[in-house]
């Protein structure tokens, strides 16, 4: 359902040809791609992981540094960065996954916190706070991916690819192993499932998705700076997954649309925009605690968003 709706909207935006909406929907696709990675780790394998913003930085800076300093072809730079991100995920995951649950979460949060500081400190590679400008854009057979339509199609192509990876793995014994580890790791291990191996796998897959999203964003903007990858980025990806519905296939997509499109729609409210957006977010948390597409199918009664004393008074009226 959600996919059909989003597909229709995506085609409509393409046909409508508004560069403004096309840009927004491109960003939706990139955020959704990174969020699918988090959804696999968090929603299915049950790991509280904050690694996605660091791996988006690997993709973004990988493409920028390879493209500008080494004059590597942007396509190759993108692929090479993704491979690097996967290797990085394994190197970080092997020691970190000795920790379980919240402890792993805290350790990976340190990685997210440290990413912008590292990018500032490694100035000889990253130009520090100035960032890297003039990143060569993607080109293919005379088509420049700086134009709205090609980048729109490419970003959605990558996003759909990420969805297909998620869906095919989830349908298989690999996905079942993830869900088993998430509900009861001891039971999964007692059945011969190597929990650490499967958690590492989610980390590596998520890293590749994040890296591709980071590369595409930077090659499209032709610019990268450390503050893009600050703590706000991982919070945004978390917000997308939680609002959309963790552990649901369409969740990251719906969450990304909510995060990017809704503020644009209520933009005319000017100074009240943030207030209304926050109220909407609270309404989701109260009414759909597992997210818009979340597994809890039951909708909570609407009066639950009212203050408690009002609810009590309402209930008294019923009696």
């Amino acid at each position, binding site marked *: 359902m959600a996919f059909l709706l989003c597909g229709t909207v995506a085609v409509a935006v393409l046909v409508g040809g508004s560069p403004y909406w096309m840009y927004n929907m491109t960003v939706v696709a990139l955020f959704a791609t990174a969020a699918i990675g988090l959804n696999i780790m968090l929603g299915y394998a049950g790991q509280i992981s904050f690694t996605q913003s660091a791996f988006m930085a690997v993709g973004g800076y990988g493409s920028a540094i390879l493209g500008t300093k080494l004059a590597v072809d942007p396509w190759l730079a993108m692929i090479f960065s993704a491979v690097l991100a996967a290797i990085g995920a394994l190197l970080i995951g092997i020691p970190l996954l000795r920790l379980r649950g919240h402890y792993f979460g805290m350790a990976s949060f340190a990685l997210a916190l440290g990413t912008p500081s590292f990018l500032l400190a490694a100035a000889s590679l990253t130009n520090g706070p100035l960032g890297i400008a003039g990143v060569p854009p993607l080109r293919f057979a005379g088509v420049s991916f700086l134009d709205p339509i090609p980048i729109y199609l490419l970003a959605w192509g990558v996003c759909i690819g990420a969805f297909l990876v998620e869906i095919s*793995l989830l349908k298989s*014994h*690999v996905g079942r*192993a993830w*869900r088993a580890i998430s*509900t009861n790791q001891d039971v999964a291990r*007692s*059945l*011969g499932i190597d929990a650490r191996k499967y958690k590492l796998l989610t980390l590596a897959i998520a890293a590749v998705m994040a890296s591709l999203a980071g590369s595409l964003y930077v090659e499209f903007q032709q610019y990268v700076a450390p503050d893009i990858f600050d703590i706000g980025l991982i919070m945004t990806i978390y917000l997308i997954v939680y609002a959309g519905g963790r552990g649901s296939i369409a969740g990251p997509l719906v969450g990304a649309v909510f995060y990017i499109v809704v503020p644009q729609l209520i933009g005319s409210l000017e100074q009240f925009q943030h207030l209304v957006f926050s109220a909407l977010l609270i309404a989701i948390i109260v009414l759909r605690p597992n997210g818009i597409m979340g597994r809890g199918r039951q909708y909570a009664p609407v009066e639950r968003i009212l203050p408690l004393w009002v609810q009590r008074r309402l209930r008294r009226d019923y009696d």
Partner: protein
Amino acid sequence: MTSAGTVEPGSTPEGLVLTQVSKAFGGVTAVKDASFSVMLGQIHGLIGPNGAGKSTVIGLVTGFLRPDSGDIRFGAHDLNRMTPEAIAQVGIARTFQKATPLVGLTALENILVGMHTRYHGGVLAALVRTSALRREERGMAERAQMILERFGLADDANTDAGDLPFGKLRFLEIARSMVLEPQLLLLDEPAAGLNRVEAARLSALIQGIRSTGTGVLIVDHDVPFVFGVCEQVTVMNLGQILASDHAAKIYENPAVREAYLGTQRAQTEAGA
């Protein structure tokens, strides 16, 4: 001590052998110098009052706990340094004392998780959904359905395991570990919470498992249940092994009667 020839898999008559195993938790001794063995193709009971160290023994054997000292062997395998998943793969399956449904997965999917190690296809095959893997997946689902039928759960195949009543869940948990096709099955308090009919079904089921050559170790403090089904019984008290012998001989053992059975008998006599 033994010559190299006797440690080949299958050639040793004994399945699981514990030698002088000890385990303490922060100064509190849970298991002390425990030695006993469980033969394959036998039903072995491990009984003892609460806190005797029975569940610790299961944890040690299945790799969830590491012994402080002593030796745990299974055929040719030294279990001391093996991970739980590796121990499961060499043929030791277990159930847990607490209810352990894999919530969010159906009963059928719970069985399929137990079959995980039987899959030939890896991650890449799953990613591109090769026809071989899809065929394998269909075969596994058919087998899982057959197993549910054998355990009387055929009608619950598509029920979320978290929604199953307790009795059915117990059988699902045993079915889930049996699809590993283990040589040794460890059951942690399998009869707890079951009614008479279910307990009788469980006894029959355990006897059926034994008849295929699989060893069964039952940890429980339900004495009538254990003596009703087990051929060999080991008695623990305060972390130590009091006796390990044929069930009939255990019943006569004066030390065991005094420490454990005796009090129980005194209670029933007092009640009568």
